[in-house]
């Protein structure tokens, strides 16, 4: 029984060189805790982002770890898409020694985890949570990584105005920060640039009956030429299905959460729907190379830009540890906060001068014939972006 024997000898060694062995291990290893949804409503967003992060950490570990020095041990725990459960697993990860925390793609669970990491000074990054209020609600350890809702909304509004749209109907849901605020940010920019909000409607997340709201839209005296919503799965498919089913052909615009295979698979139903992404893989771009590498790594092509965003989180951490020159959480935090024009895969990423929601490019996409077509990529003018 060779394996047992080896185990025995290893135990003996550990006993003899106990203290020394433990201290060397901690000097070379850095634990990153990932409190992410493997099940439930956020899983479709967290899982691709986490896959990207894993890929970059695997690559970095092969080159010696973060900053070429600290081998990453990634501990992953399932939040089940539940805010309270996120806090529980975040605590478990902290207890396990996490020096960096990764949180789900949504503001509420990220804030609940951030409230635990903030007093300890552990830098905390949301995978693709994009609510601009997210970082302010926690404090200086909390970082967004994805283009913030107000940045995305400004990009979409800029585009709508450039298309000559004049009147918008905003469909929101009070059930999440994202669905409640993003269309309102759009409305602010749109009004400032000469557009008008002709109506507002609400929906409850997870309830597929939109018939009453759609009848209201049809009955509007002042017909909108655009519907803006941040609804996503499973609400967005239900909305667009029933909207088109009721014979309403008004274009519908949304944001990043509808850039998914599920929405794309709706085919003709979503023709003309505009959404956003963290980047677009132009031929010869770094993103295209990433997509190829990811496909090789994961066995399937990236589903969205959440994969590359997750991958860039690894790059950001690597750069931060390099700058900090240590695995001290506070030093790493300061290094992230000071990043300026960092070359990611999708473009330049800047934290310096922001409230920890990065400035980075937004790609505008449009579904046509069952495919997401790139429309344009832009970094909105900071002056246009509404305050959170």
């Amino acid at each position, binding site marked *: 029984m060779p394996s047992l024997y080896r185990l025995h000898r290893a135990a003996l060694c550990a006993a003899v060189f106990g203290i020394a062995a433990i201290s060397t291990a901690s000097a070379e290893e850095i634990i990153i805790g990932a409190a992410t949804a493997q099940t439930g409503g956020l899983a479709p967003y967290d899982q691709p982002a986490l896959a990207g992060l894993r890929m970059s950490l695997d690559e970095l570990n092969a080159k010696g770890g973060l900053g070429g020095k600290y081998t990453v041990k990634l501990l992953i725990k399932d939040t089940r898409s539940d805010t309270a459960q996120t806090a529980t697993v975040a605590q478990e990860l902290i207890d396990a020694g996490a020096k960096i925390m990764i949180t789900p793609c949504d503001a509420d669970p990220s804030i609940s985890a951030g409230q635990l990491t903030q007093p300890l000074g552990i830098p905390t990054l949301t995978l693709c949570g994009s609510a601009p209020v997210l970082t302010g609600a926690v404090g200086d350890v909390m970082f967004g990584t994805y283009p913030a809702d107000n940045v995305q909304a400004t990009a979409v509004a800029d585009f709508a105005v450039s298309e000559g749209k004049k009147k918008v109907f905003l469909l929101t849901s009070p059930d999440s920060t994202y669905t409640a605020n993003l269309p309102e940010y759009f409305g602010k920019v749109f009004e400032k640039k000469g557009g008008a909000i002709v109506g507002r409607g609400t929906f409850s997340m997870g309830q597929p*009956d939109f018939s009453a709201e759609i009848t209201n839209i049809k009955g509007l005296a002042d017909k909108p030429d655009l519907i803006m919503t941040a609804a996503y799965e499973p609400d967005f498919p239900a909305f667009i299905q029933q909207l088109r089913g009721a*014979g309403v052909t008004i274009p519908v615009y949304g944001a990043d959460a509808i850039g998914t295979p599920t929405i794309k698979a*709706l085919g003709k139903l979503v023709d003309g729907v505009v959404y956003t992404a963290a980047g677009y893989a132009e031929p010869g771009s770094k993103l295209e190379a990433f997509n190829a590498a990811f496909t090789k790594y994961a066995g399937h092509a990236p589903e969205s830009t959440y994969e590359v965003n997750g991958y860039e989180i690894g790059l950001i951490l690597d750069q931060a540890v390099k700058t900090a020159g240590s695995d001290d959480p506070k030093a790493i935090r300061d290094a992230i906060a000071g990043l300026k024009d960092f070359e990611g895969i999708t473009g330049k990423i800047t934290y310096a001068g922001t409230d920890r929601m990065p400035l980075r490019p937004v790609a505008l996409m449009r579904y046509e014939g069952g495919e997401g077509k790139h429309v344009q990529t832009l970094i909105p003018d900071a002056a246009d972006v509404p305050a959170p």
Partner: protein
Amino acid sequence: MIAQQIINAVSLGGVYALLALGLAIVFSIVGLINFAHGELMTLSGYALLASLVLGFPFPVAVLVAVSCGALAAVAMERIAFRPMRGASVTSLLLTSFAVSSLLKVVFQNGISARPQAVAMPGWMTGAFSFGDFTIGVGPSISIVVSALALIALEVFLRRSVTGTAMRAAAEDFDVVRLMGIPASRIIATAFLLSGLLAGLAAILWVAQRASVDPLMGFTPVLKAFIAAVVGGLGSLPGAVAGGFLLGIIEVLLQATLPGAIAPYRDAIVLSGVIAVLLVRPQGLIPAVRAQRS
């Protein structure tokens, strides 16, 4: 516009009625609120998706989906609930929660946590127009299917021996057995019917939401439960009345509440439910049950 909102309300109410009826049928016989009823819907939804992906014609896909729901319900009774027969109401309830959670995990891990788009045929997303007035094909189908299902069920319960035995069993199960009618036949039929209703409701539900996902059964089973309680738990006419009432209230509130109050819609609906129960604690149409010492 008012006429359209009424159609919307009846259409939604019909789906709730089918769901509530599925819960009520099983409850009336075995005293179990089957919270895994929603997962029967999910299963039917996936069966519909699979059939469409395999290229079956739409009517065949619907048939496959509905049969899957019905068979799964019977299997669920056989595997999970039959061994628990005679157990307390609480144990049965917990068993149904366990079945529900288990199936959700199986769907998540076996299929995908991500919603899968279901492409319903084009004609189902069209609309009829009469001058100014348009009615969606979807809501119309929903109303017709609900009505036909309710009529078919009523005929079955009134005319057939098994149906009559089920109505009797809802009142006094032991005496039905004294008539020589096997308990397992009654219970299996109750689950079969509830599965059929779940399958039908799933088709209507999926036609509306255009996707299926592992958690899609949660909201409908909750609505069905509310409708069944409002109507009178275990009463079949009550379940239908409760379903329509809930659908109508939800749509009318959504249509008329001013924006500032709209987020409280569900709270208002539930307050209404409490009000109904305060006035009629046994529900709108209480179930008949044998009075025994």
